[in-house]
């Protein structure tokens, strides 16, 4: 039989110090990102911030710089441009819709039609979100995150003992925070689709954790004489190959989405890729050490 990982005896828990430092930094960046988002200082997508986004498809290749100059001269403020040269498309995003909805997109298409008379275009998509809807979507997203967290917590609490529940929850939060941190550091847009990805990651990252915890629980029942740390290490090693393989198949499909799924799903699949990687890492290096830590603190129910 083909095995990537054969009878390993790696001391995962022994490396928890480094893992905690690495994860701690990532989580702090993630928390900082949340604070910035709450203060409206992060790169919020127009679905949260309100504004206008236009996707234009041109007949001929177009110079992004000329578009920028034309729009600036036309008096459009606070906008981003993005180029998709392979398909001769440009994306224009203008934030802060103070004006009546529809005016910004009219102004932009007016300027471009006038400036590039010999390169015709079609408007592939227009999205205009008023400040009221943006505010509501922010609240909805926050509620969704809270509800999902609560739901997962309750389920874990029912299915596992408290110490495991703490470990699994921390690991899950860690994964979502880590992905958010990377997006924040890369200056990527924080939008509804990213929140969707984060929640999906939260749901999925538990899969791995559950696999490991199930085995730990099982082994704790049989290997009564060994110390908890050793049982945990052995359990992680035993299920290492399935932890890696299950993540790997989801990683494969996420990569397919990233490279072939088109512009709309680009950031979503990037988040999934990161989420799967962080999820696997946290299962091994975060979830179990936290459970162990909880046990050492005396919260763990004494083994018979």
């Amino acid at each position: 039989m083909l095995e990537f990982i054969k009878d390993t005896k790696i001391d995962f828990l022994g490396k928890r110090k480094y893992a905690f430092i690495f994860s701690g930094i990532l989580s702090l960046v993630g928390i900082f990102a949340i604070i910035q988002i709450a203060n409206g200082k992060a790169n919020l997508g127009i679905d949260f911030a309100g504004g206008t986004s236009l996707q234009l498809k041109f007949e001929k290749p177009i110079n992004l710089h000329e578009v920028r100059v034309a729009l600036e001269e036309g008096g459009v403020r606070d906008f981003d441009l993005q180029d998709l040269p392979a398909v001769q498309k440009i994306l224009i995003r203008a934030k802060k819709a103070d004006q009546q909805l529809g005016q910004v997109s009219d102004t932009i298409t007016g300027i471009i039609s006038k400036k590039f008379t010999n390169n015709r275009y079609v408007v592939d998509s227009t999205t205009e979100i008023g400040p009221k809807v943006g505010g509501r979507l922010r609240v909805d997203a926050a509620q969704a995150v809270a509800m999902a967290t609560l739901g997962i917590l309750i389920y874990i609490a029912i299915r596992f003992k408290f110490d495991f529940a703490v470990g699994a929850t921390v690991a899950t939060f860690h994964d979502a925070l880590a992905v958010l941190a990377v997006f924040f550091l890369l200056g990527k847009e924080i939008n509804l689709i990213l929140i969707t990805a984060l929640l999906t990651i939260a749901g999925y990252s538990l899969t791995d954790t559950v696999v490991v915890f199930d085995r730990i629980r099982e082994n704790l029942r049989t290997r009564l004489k060994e110390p908890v740390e050793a049982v945990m290490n052995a359990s992680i090693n035993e299920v290492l190959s399935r932890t890696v393989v299950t993540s790997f198949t989801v990683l494969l499909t996420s990569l397919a989405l990233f490279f072939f799924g088109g512009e709309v799903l680009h950031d979503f699949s990037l988040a999934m890729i990161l989420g799967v990687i962080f999820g696997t890492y946290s299962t091994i290096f975060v979830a179990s050490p936290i459970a162990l830590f909880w046990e050492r603190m005396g919260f763990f129910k004494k083994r018979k």
Partner: protein
Amino acid sequence: MKKNILSRFVLIGITVLLAIVFFLPNTPFFRYMPEWWKNTMPNKGITLGLDLQGGVHLVFEVEGDRAVEITAERISQSLRELLGKRKLTAEVSRNGLLITVSPNSMEVRKAIEESYPILTAAETGTKLVYKLSDREAERIKDNAANQALETIRNRIDQFGVAEPTIHRQAANEIVVQLPGIKDPKRAIEIIGKTAQLEFKLVDDSSPVAAEIPASIRMGEEDALLAKFSGKIPADEEILFEKIVNRETGEVTKRPVLLKKETMMTGDLLTEAKVNIDQRFNEPYVSITFNAAGAKLFEEITGANVKKRMAIILDGTVYSAPVIQERISGGNAQITGRFSMDEAKDLAIVLRAGALPAPIKMLQNVTVGPSLGTDSIEAGKMAGIIGTILVVLFMIIYYKLSGVIADFALLLNVILLLGAMASLNATLTMPGIAGIVLAIGMAVDSNVLMFERMRDELKTGKTPRAAVDSGYAKAFWTIFDSHVTTLITAAVLFQFGTGPIKGFAVTLSLGVAINLFTAFIGTKSIFDLINSRKEVRQLSI
């Protein structure tokens, strides 16, 4: 073959058959099916979301406060009439939602409160200040939203859009979805126009009228209004007419001094159609009033011969012709240098009726048809490549058992598409992502079981025992990991917008079906292999 294995294969066969029947309308083969099939078998399939087929998703807010204000204005007018009839002297004025009656007296108060129980007194000192009771205001807002919904529906019907979705959301919002629409901008304009048609008298005799310039440039309206704000009488107002020079195309504004009182509105018209002016070859809209409207129009024109009457739409003067004689028959014309489309659209909104209050666009998501097609192609590509990668990996890593897992994967995709078609679910771009992810997650269950079986084999169990205990031991792990994904999918469904709901649907269906394919699908194949003869070695 054992009986219970056979029955499980029959079950799988039936579900696959059902899935195919449900999904058939989404395939090219459906066209070649006989007529009876198309009529009696499922024929809807999966619907494409607006992001995939192109179209617009609009959210409008009905400005309910404006509707309450309009009612307050109407009430203050009838209060004046009421007090006049009772020979009581009191000034009635309205400011925003408040109606002020001064001076206060027992008789006035009694008269008002007997006739208008919907008014509540906010102040009863030297003057009376009334507002509409909260319940009444709520009722008006609710009515306004309902009426706006009906009006928008009428307009969309007359504009001609296939399968529009129009519904209320929250208290005062209206969602309009128009799939596959060619000219979204025009549709937005038709929906958003208040279309309040009013007829008001022009005051040419007032000394102020002589001071008002004949035309101003665009953008100077506010300055002019500020200049004249103190001078014009309380019952008069200045509105503007747009003038386009026929030779140069230059646009200017002509201020018009009007009596505030509305002589007539568009409620009484029965027909609005586009005609062509022979002189300039320009379209105009001719309107026809119903019997009551025609009578009223005749009375008004008869009483104001030689005066000018302005035709006003949404606060803009379209024309202000001199009334030459009493007009009977109930016909009028709205001219205003329209293009053919503009004239057609105006006729549509006039026929469909005015909105009870202005509406404001809160959200507009427009997707062109080519983007949708590109997205579908990209999604298919990602799905196919993702599937191939996973299928190959499973075969390489788990050999024959991998083939069995791949069979389950295929079963998963077929059943997922079938389930979506049977629910007539909407497929969105994130929904495609959900399907592709579900493909990746689908093999997880099998991986967990295979790894368990490997563990069991290592302990020296026979293949049959390894399969049985592998399945039994992996069950709860698989169950737990699926439930947590289902929890997040349920939350996303609850809170998500359209496209994200689509994601939640595909992901949760994918995960649920996965339980079936793993525990009924692959398990049955292993059982089948083991039931034939004593298997010495498991290819895993």
